[in-house]
């Protein structure tokens, strides 16, 4: 049993899940905005990165990790709301490439501003838990307290979001505003406010993700720290279907595990290539995602 737990394949699965939950979180925050506003937020990673900088750079280095994280989440909420009000609001109903272009421009601005203020150098965040793997009969299991912390945090975030959408009045209004804006406006839902709230929630999820990514000793916090994570998160969201939160979560974890095997058995350079290949194939077979019921496009 113990040799099974320390075997190469189990190590790959565990490591893959640890990476995969991060991709799931990015995918989830992309899905949150896509469902309500039909905008793919290319600045998602950069917005989260800024929130993390605010949480960990503005406060004194002695401030506790958890206080900084709370500040980062609040910053994430604010950044999300501001972005929706200032930039995104002018893009509703425009040709579908306009939001793409605007969000890419915003991404460039955010990354440059972050580099201008905090430099391009990597900033180590205090790691709240040990990153040394647990031992079993003097062999490492591919799971450290930090990895477990990542997984638990992701599960908590997903549960909170799911609970909010499924079991609260606010969640009902959010879903209504996303699915049938005209009808819900007639029924007294403040649709505009709900869209802003959706962006705020998505951005806060992003902030948690970026804190997790940046607390990892090996990556640290840089202005472009979220670029690669964003690419994998987008691939997960697109494979799962940008309309399906459950699909985003599952395909994020699946992607993480598969890529971990690819990196272990093939070559670390092949990881992103395999991910790209999976994206291309899945989009050719099911352009709307594996987990979405295919809908006829309305003319």
């Amino acid at each position, binding site marked *: 049993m113990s040799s099974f737990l320390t075997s190469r394949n189990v190590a790959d699965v565990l490591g893959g899940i640890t990476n995969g939950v991060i991709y799931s979180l990015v995918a989830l925050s992309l899905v949150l905005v896509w469902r309500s506003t039909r905008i793919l937020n290319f600045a998602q990673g950069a917005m989260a990165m800024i929130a993390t900088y605010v949480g960990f750079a503005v406060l004194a280095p002695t401030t506790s990790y958890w206080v900084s994280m709370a500040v980062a989440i609040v910053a994430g909420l604010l950044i999300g709301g501001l972005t929706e009000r200032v930039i995104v609001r002018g893009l509703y109903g425009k040709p579908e490439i306009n939001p793409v272009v605007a969000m890419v421009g915003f991404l460039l601005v955010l*990354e440059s501003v972050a580099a201008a203020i905090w430099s391009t150098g990597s900033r180590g965040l205090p790691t709240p838990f040990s990153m040394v793997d647990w031992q079993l009969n003097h062999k490492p299991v591919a799971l450290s307290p930090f990895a477990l912390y990542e997984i638990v945090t992701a599960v908590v975030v997903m549960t909170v979001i799911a609970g909010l959408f499924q079991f609260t009045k606010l969640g009902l209004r959010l879903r209504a505003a996303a699915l049938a804006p005209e009808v819900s406006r007639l029924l007294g839902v403040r649709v505009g406010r709900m869209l802003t709230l959706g962006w705020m929630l998505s951005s806060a999820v992003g902030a948690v993700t970026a804190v997790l990514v940046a607390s990892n000793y090996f990556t640290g916090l840089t202005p472009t720290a979220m670029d690669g994570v964003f690419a994998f998160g987008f691939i997960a969201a697109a494979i799962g279907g940008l309309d399906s939160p459950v699909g985003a979560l599952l395909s994020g974890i699946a992607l993480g595990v598969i890529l971990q095997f690819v990196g272990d058995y093939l070559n670390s350079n092949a990881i992103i290539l395999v991910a790209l290949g999976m994206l291309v194939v899945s989009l050719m077979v099911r352009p709307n995602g594996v987990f979405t019921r295919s809908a006829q496009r309305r003319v």
Partner: protein
Amino acid sequence: MRGVRSNQRIVAGTALGVAAVLASILGVGTARAATAFSIASVAFVAGATLLASREFRHNHPVAARAAISVLAVDVSLVLTAFFSATVDDNLAIGAAMSIVLLGLSFLTGSSGQISLGNGAFMGVGAFTVAVWANHHPTTPIAVVLVLAVVAGALVGLLLGLPATRLRGPYLAGMTLAFAVAFGAVLNLFGTWTGGDSGLQLPAAVNAPAWVLHFFKPGTSSLTTNSVWLVDITIVTAGIALFFMANLFASRTGRAMRLVRDNDVAAELVGISLPRARVIAFIVSAAYAALGGGLWTLINNAVTPSTYGFALSVTILSLVVIGGIGTIPGALIGGLIYAFAANVIAWFTAHTGLNPQGNVASQLNGIIFGGLLVLTILFAPTGIAGFVRRRWAAWRAR
């Protein structure tokens, strides 16, 4: 009408006279270079006279486009002989960038698709040129550039196939993934591409003997390598411009604009959507690869870090700021790129920013990103669209 035409004849005649006088003055010292300049002037006058006639523009559109391209190349070539080496170099980089922008402008403006991977397509061309030149150093550059175009088109086809079923944001995301993956691809084939450090060309590109022979007694500046490379780039850009202008006006181009504006209507009139989308994607990739190949020739080397995601974003912002979907927009974007670094350096010097500081090194991104957001929000047609609207309003007065 008749009066207009005789006026044109007078203008043409005067210009010819001026050219002849200029040629004879220059001819005293530097016979061959002066001949070259005279030919350039005559060509300019002839082309301008032709283009001034509405009848000609209307009856021979292809010839008119050729005349415009030749004129643009003609003027630029003559100017390069007078500019300093630095300005020439900037112009060459910008002219190559214009080619890339023409491609993306066609993709976005004609078919309504968007690509965040054109920087990587440039990289495909750049590395094709470098790898080929390192294995077969004697191949003429025209052949090497054609190879770069073919390589770009092939990669474009590969990525364009899924594009047939994708719309807007999905396609943008896929090309973004390609841009991020490009560095890993280069590393995977590190024995060919030189890994992180990239490749040097085995020898600088030299002007062929007959050109040197033609200019030797004349202005020495024309024979230096940098000018030769600038001229190659400008001529290539002119050819690319000519083809793109025809493509925009062709049946395919019109079909694609219909795809952009209303893809359902396009399908109803018998346009094959997948075919139109793949063609647009291949053309844009091939143009990007050509621009990248020229960059390798100009820099005499290629490094993988140049062709990262940031370059793709820069390309997108130049196209949008210049004016998406228009040929002048792409040329404006190229000019902006050629001199952006100088303008920013000037700005840094005059505001007292530390040139090595964090803020100064990030100004480029802040300005381009900010302009990109502002342009798409408030003037989505860019500089070219703005000027065109002003011009139309002025004429309507």
